């Protein structure tokens, strides 16, 4: 059992306790947790924390881990500067 003070999302410094609170408020999946806590909204876009968030969801909601999918993948695949994006493929 993880401690409430443990940081799960390192980019946005979101703790286990905050994620549990979000689930109590109605978050039912990774995206619901993300919208309520910012977990997964930082520079790494959930690469580090997403699995752990899924595990906390499974524990708190008493469901098998296999019922939880990763959040919707949003471009870019990796962070890209405004300058490079503006040059683009058609710029």
């Amino acid at each position, binding site marked *: 059992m993880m401690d409430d003070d443990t940081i799960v999302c390192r980019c*946005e410094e979101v703790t286990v306790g905050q994620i549990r609170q979000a689930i109590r*408020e*109605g*978050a*039912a*999946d990774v*995206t*619901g947790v993300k*919208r*309520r806590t*910012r977990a997964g*909204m*930082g*520079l790494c*876009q959930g690469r580090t924390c997403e699995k752990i968030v899924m595990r906390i969801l499974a524990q708190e909601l008493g469901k098998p881990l296999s019922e939880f999918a990763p959040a919707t993948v*949003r*471009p*870019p695949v990796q*962070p*890209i*500067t*405004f*300058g490079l*994006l*503006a040059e*683009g*493929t*058609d*710029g």
Partner: protein
Amino acid sequence: MASAADVIVVGGGVIGSAIAYYLSQEGTKVALVERGDVASGTSSACDGNILVIDKMPGYDSQLALKSQELLAELVESLDYDLEYAQRGSVLVVEDEKQAQVARDWFTRQKDAGLPMRYLEGKEVFEDEPLLAHDMVGLVECASDASLNPMAFVYGLISGARRAGAMIHPFTEVTGFLQDSTGVVRGVETTHGTISADKVVLAAGVWTPGLAATVGVNVPIKPRKGHILVAERSPHPARRKVQEFGYLLAKFGGTEGRSVEPDMDRYGVAMVFEPTEHGNFLIGSSREFVGFDQRCNHHVLELMARRALRFFPTIRDIRVIRTYAGLRPYTPDHLPIVSPVPTVPGLYIAAGHEGDGIGLAPITGRLIAQMIVGEPTAVATEPLRIDRFVNKEHKGE
């Protein structure tokens, strides 16, 4: 499961949540039904503007101003951190030709009593030093504000719940109950029947599909808009900045800008919004592509190019995420906040396009006043659904 309420609100985005909040404050028994999580559609794929500056002078801007006043009260009364910041906002003017239109816009808004200023020449760069050096003017509205739209929904929902509202997420409406004369008696859902004498459709771009099942034609179309999210970084401006050409893109007719043709084609206009967490958002685009919510990479490139036109210093800042949302467009750019004359007991509150976050407070208040039978805070004639009857509106 069968249950009963005074009013059923269909839709758990910002509009439905505001309606549920204001109705529950009046002591009305509310049931809110949302097919997904609350704040999971358009209200989670937008920015968080509470603006007067981009409204048409007249009814449109007065409605927005009233909503700003209500929002300031909500910031105090909702027990939730909305990440609200009232820093004002500016429209940036690119050249002398645009400046003539912008000065006229400014004068009309100021004469209507809005807290506006016009800055030109050196004043522009004393105010926002990182703007491109050839900008010629700024129109400022001091009352404009921003917040986190998802936190706003969660705050309204928890306020409504505390006042007794029943919130049913992950529950989809599958049909309407009507008596033999057509009067609304409730809804059927994936989790059972809820009976009520009033039903409010607040389902944004999904409203026409629901309304059609009771024979009501709602002229709302999904209009896709993209947003780029920048990493935490020094901000190139201290508050919301939009290019003056955004107004042209919003109200149709982008003539007057010298931009590559695809920027006009996709309605690309620069919108910058700082967030409370140190990131910033870059908008905007507008296109009619049905319910396709995928990001169009070509449009993202156009938006990055347009942003660099106004803020050359962000060249090396990284974009960490992009998303697109479906804005509920109406042909005359005003929302529908109205009873439905042909179906007694049915109301519609939808069609706010890019103004839903800002207009949610006044929309919630107006629907609550209509339902409990109080005089409304502003005239609601321009928001009635029957304004579209017998008029042929062609989309842009």
